[in-house]
């Protein structure tokens, strides 16, 4: 994955928060993922196939997702498990789908799968490099992890 490809996901993340909540997110410098887990309370996982293969996941705390639901004015129970799962899946789906503007239609994304908790690790292909993008939104911190060929 190139620096410019990584920038697509950084831009997509800041655009998502800026447009849906009018409170832009700040993205810290990305770094290479090692053995450390970056799974928080809820994680949306998207598989990439087509021209490139890999995995993208966005992991956030319950507090962040609740505040995001409130900020978007969806009027849903913002602490309910189903709402939190929905929210993290939608963030992951939107950021990944928006990347097709740069990568084209052969950058194929799956329906998001949501993982709750940080007990189980997520499989990331060992032959591919994963980058961690820390996302700061208000008092909250989340992680976007991008693992692409």
């Amino acid at each position, binding site marked *: 994955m190139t620096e410019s490809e990584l920038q697509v996901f950084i831009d997509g993340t800041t655009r998502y928060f800026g447009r849906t909540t009018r409170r832009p997110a700040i993205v810290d410098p990305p770094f290479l993922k090692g053995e450390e887990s970056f799974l928080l309370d809820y994680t949306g996982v998207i598989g990439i196939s087509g021209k490139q293969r890999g995995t993208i996941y966005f992991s956030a705390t319950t507090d962040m997702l609740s505040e995001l639901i409130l900020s978007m004015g969806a009027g849903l129970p913002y602490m309910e498990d189903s709402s939190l799962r929905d929210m993290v899946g939608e963030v992951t789906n939107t950021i990944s*789908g928006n990347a097709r503007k740069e990568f084209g239609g052969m950058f194929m994304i799956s*329906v998001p799968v949501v993982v709750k908790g940080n007990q189980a690790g997520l499989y990331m292909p060992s032959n591919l490099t994963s980058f961690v993008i820390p996302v700061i939104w208000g008092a909250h911190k989340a992680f976007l992890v991008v693992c692409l060929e």
Partner: protein
Amino acid sequence: MRLLIVDDSSIVRRIIERHFRNHAITEIYEASNGQKALEVYREKAPDLVTMDITMPEMDGLSAVRHIMEINPKARILVISALADAATAVEAVKLGARGFLCKPFTAAELDEAFVDILEISAA
């Protein structure tokens, strides 16, 4: 006017529903995938459909194709995160009257809604 909102995200469905509550929409129906959308479309014959693309069971583009077979004059606005031009072109070729990219603003949703009504009236 009757509206059918199709999206696998209940949050997105709720945002669109709350937005259109302020418009001349008298009945709002929802579906969480393309298959359910077809069932609701056949039963309720909505005047306007907002359609996501990436959904389980049946994706939105397939649903657009099926709805156009049911009603070639159907008014469908595709609302998707898939931001590449080819997807938008494909949606329009299948019969969608408009394409709105997520994440959208309220003003963009209004504009797309008005565009569809104007195109349909022309």
